[in-house]
């Protein structure tokens, strides 16, 4: 067992973990932050997307121990109390959900993208989200929601 210290959604956390634990398993199973899904488990579908120090990453193919001392943000840490983030609001306003499984990953990837991109075009958004799969194929409204969020 190894000791892991990191910050998750603003909270300092210390835990003893098995070295083979992925960041996704740690967030989902150990901390109970169930918004971070494991989809493909191979870094392809993006359902496990979280931010490490502000950048989107695929938590299913990163060892939790590699997040030692880092600042992690998950979907649960996006809202400010009762006030949702602009991206979350926009997903609701645009009905950018079908089954919802890909949604946390989509929102985290979108948030990271919008943090570093001013006035994106639809093409920019589609390229930025190409690592996030929606098996309901509800891409149109997702892209619309991100475009709307970029103007907020």
């Amino acid at each position: 067992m190894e000791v892991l210290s990191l910050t998750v959604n603003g909270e300092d956390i210390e835990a003893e973990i098995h070295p083979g634990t992925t960041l996704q398993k740690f967030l989902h199973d150990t901390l109970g932050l169930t918004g971070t899904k494991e989809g493909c488990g191979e870094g392809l579908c993006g359902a496990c997307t979280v931010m490490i120090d502000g950048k989107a990453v695929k938590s299913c193919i990163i060892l939790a121990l590699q997040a030692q001392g880092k600042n992690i943000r998950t979907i649960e840490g996006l809202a400010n109390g009762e006030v949702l983030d602009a991206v979350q609001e926009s997903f609701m306003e645009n009905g950018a959900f079908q089954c919802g499984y890909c949604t946390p990953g989509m929102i985290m990837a979108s948030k990271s993208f919008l943090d570093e991109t001013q006035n994106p075009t639809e093409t920019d958004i589609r390229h930025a989200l190409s690592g996030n799969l929606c098996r309901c194929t509800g891409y149109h409204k997702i892209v619309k929601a991100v475009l709307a969020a970029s103007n907020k």
Partner: protein
Amino acid sequence: MEDFKYFAASDVKQACALLAQYGEEAKVLSGGQTLVNMMKQNLVMPSYLVDIKGLSDISYIRYDGEAGLCVGSLTSHRTLEQSNIVKEKYPMLAEMELNLASVAVRNWGTVGGNLCSADPASDLAPCLMALGAELTLVCQDGERMILLEDFIVDSFETSIKPNEILTQIRIPAKAPKSGGSHIKFARRATDLGIVVVSSYLTLDDTVPGRCKDIRIALGSIDPSPRRYKNAEDCVKCQKISDPIIEKAAQAVFEDCQPTSDINGSADYKREVAKVMVRRSVKMAAARAGAC
């Protein structure tokens, strides 16, 4: 995932000492975008994992007119993609990165890790081969340099020794009148390539439009990324023209060894390779100023 002992190395020296101690039982972990995946599937089961991702002194991008572009092995794909000096001197490298996996993978994955995993479908390897990249490998006893084209020996196999760490990738300085192109053919964005072609062409200083040197490398289509020297010889020392480029494309068509799989038949891939080589060499020549 099988059990292993984890070490977060504090510097290159300590990482080398750990590798010297544990030898083939140890694996080096950088971004782990390939290795962690393989460990999850029990394709790789190291007893010791030496994590070097935190070694910021081998994460850098520097350029000077003599040494060329030096990239620390732990530089992330995303940093390479966004580097202004890379965009200016080697646009094909930045363009390649734009279509390598997804943003989230590029944020965490490293260029050194990509090369050491030696995936036959690496986008980075053929691009760097065309650019003539040379690697620095470090161990406790010193360091050695090796060309990337000699480093990758087979599918998922390199000539790195169990006690070595890849620390730097160097691309020779950009010659005047040179240009390159990287084209990836894949079914959808973020997919691995079905055929990947990189060309880098330098024009003669004295004879207008004549090719002085060219490197053509393909990825995804063979057991490992490699140069196509017969195709290069068709273009080298020739005045660039459509028939000359066609000869190079035909040479690749004849030399490549694709296998039939879910992405297409071997015959199909060979045809695609021919078209892509034609386009890639044309673009490289145009960027070098041939037309």
